[in-house]
């Protein structure tokens, strides 16, 4: 072990059990609310949701993962409700709203009998007119990118993204307290996340990836594991956004203090352990009408707090990221979106000179372009969407294509393709090259 970070970590095992503590936290919220409500004042909440069957077959075989011919086979039942607190009480006067959304999933890929995922369980209220509070499990999103996130460090599920689940599942919930303040000059969002949630990334069981310990694209043979920060006050995460409109344009400043949600640093090479290094992000964005479309600019300075000088080969360096995007409506329900993202590692010379001869290493620059084309047909009941990532510097890319048909208000059929590719096995998309899939989803909404 070359480096011992100055924080305490709890070992988080790959495929480990979900935190029981976290489930308790959100469940407690529900009980508090139920206890606080006067008996008899409750109308039955309305329940909505969907049932869905998903299948994603691999284009080609992947002998490294659990199944060689497919990477998605599951049934899903989602139930959700949004309940405004009735009656003559303080929660009603504060416009209290309880939101719940949960998925019951039978994931046949792992032959589980079924699991329950609570995606949202929160209570929102406004104790004073300029303040909204949301407490509990919630989805958090901000920033201006389209599938590109600079100042949105909230957790994401990239396995769902690659295997063809609905876009909804790219975002993972956070157990958080969100305070939204609306004074005259600017709007302020402050988020406190007491318990760190990492990104869900390819880990070899379902989706193969590049494992630097194995020296190549790896599946179930990986021994790699990532160590999560322990649940304690000094590991709380904070996110801040200050934003306002200027005429038709919007500007925002962002600040984030927490951990990189993707484990990009080595804790213990001998034991093949990675960790989520401490990270501060300072950012800004601008979005508004431009040349008949919408343009956006966003930037972020990533400060790697455990390797600020950049000379530790095991810990991710600080970086700058820039993003420019443009979307235009070409008429006839045809839309085009273009983005360019540039990332630069800072103190790169210090990092490079610290590297050992056998090390895999990060590049200094990364250029990434994206193109989105969306076209609606048949009175907007058919949507054809193409989203393409292409990195000239990494010489890799990822094509996502889908066609969704709203058969009726209840039934929806979606088919699509996920085509990651790359010249090298080590790059973000290149490492995913064995996971090309074609998927189908059938959903009944109620």
């Amino acid at each position: 072990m070359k480096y011992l970070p100055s924080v305490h970590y709890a070992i988080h095992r790959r495929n480990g059990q979900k935190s029981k503590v976290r489930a308790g936290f959100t469940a407690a919220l529900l009980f508090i609310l139920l206890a606080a409500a006067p008996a008899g004042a409750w109308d039955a909440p309305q329940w909505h949701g969907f049932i869905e069957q998903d299948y994603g077959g691999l284009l080609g075989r992947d002998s490294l993962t659990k199944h060689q011919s497919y990477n998605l086979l599951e049934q899903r039942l989602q139930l959700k409700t949004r309940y405004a607190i009735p009656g003559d009480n303080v929660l009603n006067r504060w416009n209290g709203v309880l939101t719940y959304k949960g998925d019951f999933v039978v994931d046949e890929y792992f032959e589980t009998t079924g699991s329950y995922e609570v995606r949202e369980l929160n209570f929102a209220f406004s104790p004073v007119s300029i303040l909204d509070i949301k407490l509990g499990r919630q989805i958090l999103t901000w920033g201006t990118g389209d599938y590109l996130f600079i100042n949105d460090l909230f957790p994401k599920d990239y396995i769902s993204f690659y295997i063809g689940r609905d876009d909804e599942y790219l975002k993972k919930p956070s157990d958080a307290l969100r305070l939204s303040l609306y004074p005259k000059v600017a709007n302020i969002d402050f988020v406190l996340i007491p318990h760190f949630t990492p990104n869900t990334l390819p880990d070899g069981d379902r989706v193969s990836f590049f494992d630097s310990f194995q020296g190549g694209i790896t599946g179930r043979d990986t021994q790699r594991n990532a160590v999560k920060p322990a649940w304690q006050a000094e590991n709380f995460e904070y996110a801040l956004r200050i934003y306002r409109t200027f005429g038709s344009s919007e500007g925002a400043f962002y600040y984030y203090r927490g951990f990189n949600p993707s484990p990009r640093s080595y804790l213990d090479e001998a034991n093949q352990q990675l960790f989520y290094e401490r990270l501060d992000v300072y950012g800004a964005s601008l979005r508004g009408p431009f040349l008949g479309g919408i343009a956006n600019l966003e930037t972020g300075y990533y400060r790697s707090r455990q390797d600020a000088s950049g000379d530790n080969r095991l810990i991710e360096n600080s970086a700058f990221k820039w993003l420019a995007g443009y979307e235009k409506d070409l008429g006839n329900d045809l839309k085009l979106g273009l983005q360019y993202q540039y990332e630069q590692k800072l103190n790169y010379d210090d990092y490079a000179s610290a590297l050992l001869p056998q090390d895999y290493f990060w590049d200094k620059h990364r250029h990434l372009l994206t193109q989105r084309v969306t076209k609606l047909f048949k009175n907007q009941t058919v949507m054809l969407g193409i989203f393409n990532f292409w990195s000239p510097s990494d010489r890799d890319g990822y094509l996502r294509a889908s066609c969704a048909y709203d058969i009726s208000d209840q039934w929806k059929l979606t088919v699509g393709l996920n085509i990651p590719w790359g010249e090298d096995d080590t790059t973000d998309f290149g490492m995913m090259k064995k996971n090309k899939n074609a998927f189908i989803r059938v959903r009944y909404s109620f």
Partner: protein
Amino acid sequence: MIKRMIFLLIFILAGNLEAFALTVDEVVAKANNRSYYQGQDGSAKASMVITDAQGRTRQRQLTILKLNIKEGGDQKYFVYFHKPNDVKGMSYIVWKHIGKDDDRWLYLPAMDLVRRIAASDKRSSFAGTTFLYEDISGRAIDLDKHDLIAGEQDFYVVKNTPQDAAAVEFSYYTVKIDKNNFLPVKAEYYDKSGKLYRIIEALEVRDIQGYPTVTKMKASDLNSKANTVTEFSEIKYDIGLKDEIFTERSLRNPPSQWTKE
């Protein structure tokens, strides 16, 4: 007393004279204000039923809040979807501008995502119905040249020819306007070959707080043989909506006073 009666007489005469002397542009401006700018603000629930050529139906249910910034000019809209169930909770905000593109934001609650929508094409379908965005929020009147054509006793009939023919799919459209209350009751759109292909008609008009209001309307697409019938309910004018309603805050946290079911 006599003085007062003379005043009244002059007032009535002047009013009548004005009605006789209205130019076509004044008629169009009055009709536009009647259709889109009544009251300082307003709210309504809209229930839309889309029927396709095979008779299959789809439903949309939404809450619409509206605030006039300037009569005949800029407006702000907040739209919240109740149905269909797969988009329930989705909402969007439009800041309508005259002479430049509207600003539109769409909120997808499942991802807590506020998207800025590039929306220069106002002649695209509104939420998959046979109504177009322009039918819902109004078409800027100076985009067309207006001519009064042979009308009927109780109606003005105005022919509207686009200033920029290449920007729209029609060659012209006619609008029948009720002389009593200046409400448009029927619009007929003709394609580039001169064939009637699209009809919007008022099916029911009611007096709401003194404002004559279309409470049921139908948009028929004669080419696809699909139509949409929209019924408005719980219509209220002058409810004191504030500018702050029409901001990102309402997307994430819809104003429950107006959106509850």
